[in-house]
């Protein structure tokens, strides 16, 4: 059984550690905020100028001067700070954001990521994604493992224009948790976990990139309430 968007987000949230500063992209990454383990302190960095972004406001607390990078109205948590765009990207580019979670169209063996442009379709721009992938200490990609025709999106080489090169740390898909091999031994990924009920064979069949499969690949622990 494949993971839901919320289950992917839940699994990514298990990668958080206490005291981290995290930037969450639009889509599944945003859902990670709902799954921060109880008792853990994590500060969300929003690249339009917040360290310590909170939940959506109540109707009475909506403030047009307080939005997130998706242009949604938000709030702040205790201990938050505001800053300019150049300060925000100093944090990002300077490596002070510990973890970035973002979506992608494709990733490849070399850790390249394509997430901003499909030739022939309208280009809307890269926003802050190129800065984020160039510099965060760790990059976790949340994506579907294959397209609707079953073709892998974890490729030997990305086919779409790149957002960044050699930057992917981990990939969490509807089928698996992959970790990029960075010791120089081989290109590609190591299969760390599989979605409950999904076979290693299915993952291999849907992964074009070189995939190292350990002798045992445990099933992901995802809460039953989130299993569809």
């Amino acid at each position, binding site marked *: 059984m494949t993971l839901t968007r919320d289950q992917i987000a839940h699994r990514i949230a298990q990668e958080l550690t206490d005291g981290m500063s995290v930037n969450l992209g639009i889509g599944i990454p945003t859902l990670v905020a709902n799954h921060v383990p109880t008792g853990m302190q994590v500060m969300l960095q929003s690249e339009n100028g917040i360290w310590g972004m909170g939940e*959506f406001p109540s109707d009475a607390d909506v*403030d047009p001067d*307080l939005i997130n990078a998706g*242009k949604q*109205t938000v709030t702040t948590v205790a201990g938050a700070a*505001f800053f300019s*765009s150049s300060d925000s*990207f100093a944090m990002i580019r300077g490596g002070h954001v510990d973890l970035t979670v973002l979506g992608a169209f494709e990733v490849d063996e070399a850790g390249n990521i394509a997430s901003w442009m499909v030739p022939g379709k309208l280009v809307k721009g890269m926003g802050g994604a190129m*800065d984020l992938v*160039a510099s965060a200490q760790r990059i976790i990609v949340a994506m579907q493992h294959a397209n609707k025709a079953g073709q892998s999106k974890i490729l030997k080489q990305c086919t779409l224009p790149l957002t960044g090169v050699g930057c992917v740390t981990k990939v969490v898909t509807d089928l698996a948790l992959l970790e990029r091999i960075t010791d120089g031994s081989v290109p590609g990924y190591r299969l760390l976990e599989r979605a409950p009920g999904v076979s290693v064979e299915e993952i291999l069949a849907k992964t074009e990139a070189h995939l190292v499969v350990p002798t045992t690949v445990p099933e992901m622990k995802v809460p039953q309430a989130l299993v569809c």
Partner: protein
Amino acid sequence: MAGLNKVITSYYDALDGLHDGMTVMAGGFGLCGIPEGLIGEVARKGTKNLTCISNNAGVDDFGLGILLANHQISTMIASYVGENDEFERQYLTGELNVIFTPQGTLAEKIRAGGAGIPAFYTPTGYGTAVAQYPDGTPKETRQFKDIHGNTKWYVLEESLTADFALVKAWKADTYGNLIFNKTAANFNPMMVTAARTTVVEVEDIVEAGQLDPNDIHVAGIYVDRLIVGTFEKRIEQRTVKTAAAV
């Protein structure tokens, strides 16, 4: 206007000297923190063939979208432009030249421009389409060590300046010392510094000396003209918490 007093009272005077073909920076992230009245005055004035530097391009009937609809912008330098049908149409027909620039690179190009730094190396965009100039010429690349001592590739990016900066701040004093509000700061504090003429539209102006110097985000030294505006502050994505999301 006299001495250090930057306050002017008419939008007509605020944009005195803005001509066809000039480069204009406009602050804001989406519709948050945009100089609404100054954009309205550019529209009224009808200045054409503008190169516009702004993170986004407004929506169809608000923000820079108004100037797009009037065909006043010929080149747009931005990081993301997703919410504007007229922008899309002009871009696809080639009426509008668009230079997509990563958001952090855009911010730093403006910061550097205002700080007298003509170019800088950044890791952003190495190995991607933005490591080339719009004509396809590769930008200069070079290796440096990062803070952890790891050797990485960097791309040389040239800074940006403008003829006019149209800026939105929250409060000012008459000397142009500025305070921004929450995420309405965004690109505004850098743009204040990076234009030959900087015009700031604010919600409130007090006498010089009334603001605590400790509270000021940007010093008035950069500001040429100040005007009090009234702001609609349109919200693009009004999101409120629901019972399920609590």
